[in-house]
């Protein structure tokens, strides 16, 4: 055992920079995942085949391939055709896009959980399709799926270190940089503990939320 606390002290300022970047990525990634997921879910219930099919193919493809390779793809391939993005932006888009395909499953389950009578009632009141979705179905669907969506925030937090692979200096990126320049190893342990410290209380909180909301 040759653990040195001085390295931990020295790493701390960098660590907080990493935390800031991780949280930024998480916030914007979540926003994308939650909103895009809803779009996928509604599109998959469309009556038009030409909407339903491509969406199914795209979401299945994204869900069944690794986030890491998707990040590489976004970072190295996309700039060949269009705009180049900073590592952080790439990370946000990657996380958001990847997990939108998971949240779409959550929304789908929520939408299917709305009693059929609600659809019939909307038809009986001759509400337009848009009104049916926005005032009847979605408000009921979304409330039930909040805890499940919350789970994905934690999952995204845990997967966010993959951004370090494309050079985003999140918690892991900072630790990696620090370790490589100083030839020490304490920094990664600090980051590992940080994840437990953030994620465990968050999952406890979600459990409480779940008990309150889903009944």
């Amino acid at each position, binding site marked *: *055992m040759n653990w040195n606390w001085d390295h931990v002290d020295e790493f701390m300022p960098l660590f907080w920079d990493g935390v800031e970047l991780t949280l930024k990525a998480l916030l914007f990634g979540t926003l994308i995942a939650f909103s895009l997921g809803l779009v996928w879910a509604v599109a998959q219930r469309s009556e038009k085949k030409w909407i339903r099919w491509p969406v199914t193919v795209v979401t299945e493809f994204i869900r069944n391939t690794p986030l890491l390779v998707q990040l590489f793809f976004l970072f190295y*391939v996309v700039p060949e055709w269009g705009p180049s993005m900073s590592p952080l932006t790439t990370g946000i888009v990657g996380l958001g896009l990847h997990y939108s395909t998971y949240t779409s499953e959550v929304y789908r389950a929520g939408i299917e959980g709305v009693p059929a009578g609600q659809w019939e009632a909307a038809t009986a009141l001759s509400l337009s399709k848009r009104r049916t979705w926005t005032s009847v179905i979605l408000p009921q669907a979304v409330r039930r799926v909040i805890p499940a969506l919350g789970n994905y925030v934690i*999952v995204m937090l845990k997967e966010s270190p993959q951004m370090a692979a494309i050079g985003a200096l999140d918690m*892991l990126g900072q630790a990696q940089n620090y370790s490589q320049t100083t030839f020490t190893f304490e920094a990664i342990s600090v980051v590992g503990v940080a994840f437990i410290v953030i994620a465990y209380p968050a999952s406890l909180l979600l459990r409480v939320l779940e008990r309150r909301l889903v009944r």
Partner: protein
Amino acid sequence: MSSEFFGNWFLPGIWITVQVTFFSAALAFVIAFPIGVLRTSRLWIVRFLAGAYFEIFRSTSSLVFMFWIAFTVPPLFNISFQPMFAGVLALGITYGAYASEIVRGALAAVPPAQREAGIALNFTPLQRLRRIELPQAWPEMIPPFNNLLIELLKGTSLVSLIAVADMTFAGDLLRLVKNESAPIYTLLLALYFVFAFILTRGMRLLERHAKKRVGQTPEKTSLFGGLRSKSSIDVVSGTGGAK
């Protein structure tokens, strides 16, 4: 893409991805059953310890854990091992935790009367587990295991970051050497998708077989009908988290 490079890096990379997937899935499986069973124990301390294992690994990032094993453990304890060993260990331990939750859930779903029947027949707890509870819980475990396996397959791409020459690593290397990326990463994504597809179909067959054996009716499946099981949201414990 030159055929020389393909033969030297890409094909071996594919083989390493298959190996890492296989070994870490095997490790996860070996860990999951005892831990899952212990989590249903009547002794609170046993339940607590097995539960703690699950909670710890559910709350850490598998990549950070992998880095920790690969780069912190060797200098800290003055030992050394191959990066691939570190990768398999990290993935196996992490996914073992998620899998243990699946085992626990499936065991809990066996009707209590079945356990009582076992007690009435004077079975030992181990006999009950082997002859009554596990055979009934097994078909329930397969669909979530399938989801987990896909997550694990995707998770194996992380080993490229600790310098294991899997197919993602080969792709990355190729980008640096050839300075082109579109065909490489497209191929890589397609390969992972094909692997995931094959795994899913294989597990479907296993599920049908298992259900027939215990006398449940297997669901009808079409070749393309839904790549993942419908229950993916509640179990996807895959990438883990509080999922």
